[in-house]
Structures are given as C-alpha cells and as structure tokens.
C-alpha cells in the first residue's frame, strides 16, 4: 500500500481513486488509499489516507481520515488524525477535529475547531 503520495499540487497524479465531476454517491465510502472527489458524496467517508475535495466537489458527510484538503464544499464533521487544510474559496460547515489545521485566506468556515493533540482513535 503506497503511503508516499504527492500532496503539494495535482494530487490526481499520485492518487488511485478519483470520483469524477458527474458522479453522485449516496452512501458510505471507506478505504486505505487516497481519494480525490470532484463530484458529490452524501453519507460517510472513512479513509486511512488522504482525502482531497477538489473545487467541484460537494460533500455532505462526516469525514474520518488521516489528511483532508478541501478546495470545494463540505457540510459535515471532519476528524483527521494528521492534518486538515482548508484552501482558498472552499466552504466548510461543520466541526473539525485534528492536531494540525490550516485555513487559507479566502476560505469560508463555520464550526468548531478542536486541536486535541491525542491521536485519533476509531469511534
């Protein structure tokens, strides 16, 4: 299982799963690899690696993962064991729980932030 993925730019290059722009998923997604979302997901996302919500991505779900990078829309709670990054022009409504949080200038966020240092355990 590849753990070294380019996270800087164009995560698509190193990621294995891409949910394209016209895809709508209503249900649960889980996995052990990076996930790039350009479409719509409603339900629940649970990953061991990184989640990239691209600018066209719309998520109405609770997210539990190692890393999250949001450029699109997320409505739901985010729990990351490593880092959460909210990029410019993203829109996040929900609570964030992660040891490291980055909110870029221009990002829109509404919710609580909990930077509890303790390692995230599975619920």
């Amino acid at each position: 299982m590849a753990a070294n993925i380019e996270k800087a730019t164009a995560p698509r290059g190193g990621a294995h799963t891409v949910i394209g722009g016209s895809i709508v998923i209503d249900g649960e997604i889980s996995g052990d690899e990076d996930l790039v979302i350009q479409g719509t997901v409603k339900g629940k996302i649970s990953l061991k690696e990184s989640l990239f919500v691209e600018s066209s991505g719309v998520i109405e779900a609770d997210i539990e993962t190692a890393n999250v990078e949001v450029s699109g829309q997320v409505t739901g709670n985010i729990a990351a064991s490593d880092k959460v990054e909210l990029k410019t022009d993203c829109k996040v409504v929900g609570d964030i729980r992660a040891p490291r949080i980055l909110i870029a200038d221009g990002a829109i966020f509404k919710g609580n932030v909990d930077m509890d240092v303790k390692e995230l355990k599975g619920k």
Partner: protein
Amino acid sequence: MATLDGSTIIGESILINGSLNGDEDLTVRGRVEGTLTLTRTLVVEPTGIVKAEVQVKNCIIAGVVVGNVTASESVEITREGRMVGDINSPRVIIVDGASFRGRIDMGDFDLPHGERPARSALARPVSAPSRPAMRAPPAPLLSRPAMARKEEPKVAEKLEKTEKAFPAKPPAPPVPVGVGTVKRKVIVRRK
C-alpha cells in the same frame, strides 16, 4: 486491462456502499455495493467487485459482478470475468474462459420455433445476414415423393406466423423444405 481516459476510478482498497450515479465512464478496481447507474461505460477490472444492481450503457466485466446488469448497448464478460445475475442488453459477448450464471435477455428477436415476441425497439434485423444461403434462386420443381408434400404446409405455416409478427423486418427468405435429393429444393413463398 485498459483504463478509460479522464474517468472515475475506484481504487483497489476503496469500498463504496450506497448508490452511485454518474454521467461518465467508471472503472472499478475496488468494491461497490448497492446500485450503480451510469450513462456511460462501466469497467470492472480483475480486482473489482460489484455487488449491485447495475444500469449502464456499456459494461465490461473482467472482475466479479453479483447482481443484475441492464445495459442499453452492450455487456462483455472477459476471460477473467465472473458474473452471477441477469443480463438485459441487446449485445452480449461472453469470451471463452468467462464464468456466468444467470439469464440473458437480448430483447426481442425472431425466435426460433414460431414463438411470437412483442415488438421492441431493441430488436435488430439480424435475420437478414444470418440466412444468405436461403436466398438462392428457386430451383425448378421436379418429381418429389408424395410424403414430403404433406410436411410442407405445416412447417410453412409456423414460419409464416413467426414472420408475420414482424412486418417491419426485411422480407422473409424462402424456406427450402424436405426432399431427399440434395440439389432439388421446394421453395414455399408467403401469400
């Protein structure tokens, strides 16, 4: 296995449980359960498992599919493909080595044995290419045993009924019926 360009890929370790809808091609290397509806092509790669009701335009199965597949264009099960479920598609290709268990319905066509299926948009006029040999010019009628004569009208009737169900089809080719000698044929024409 070729991956479709610029399409959605569900990686090997990903599990999606729910309903998936899309207007693009989808390649499954992981697991999808629930329902899967696409207006384009679904490719289930050898590592892919789809346990869902599938509705797509085209479907190429090289992995495992458990569930019914309805495709508006084609379904192909490759050598590594395994499927349990029903297929509804005008074109179905099963390659040698594939595994399949279920029903196949290719839409309505001129069924053998005089059955009369309802008209369907999926029906293709395949009967024309399949019977080129029968379009041979009628051979002159020579002496035939009296027995053979009785058989003709019944057989001809059954086939007439079948063919009358499809007025839109190309005209039915002549039907050669029973004579012992190889070269002589009796052609029965539709009235």
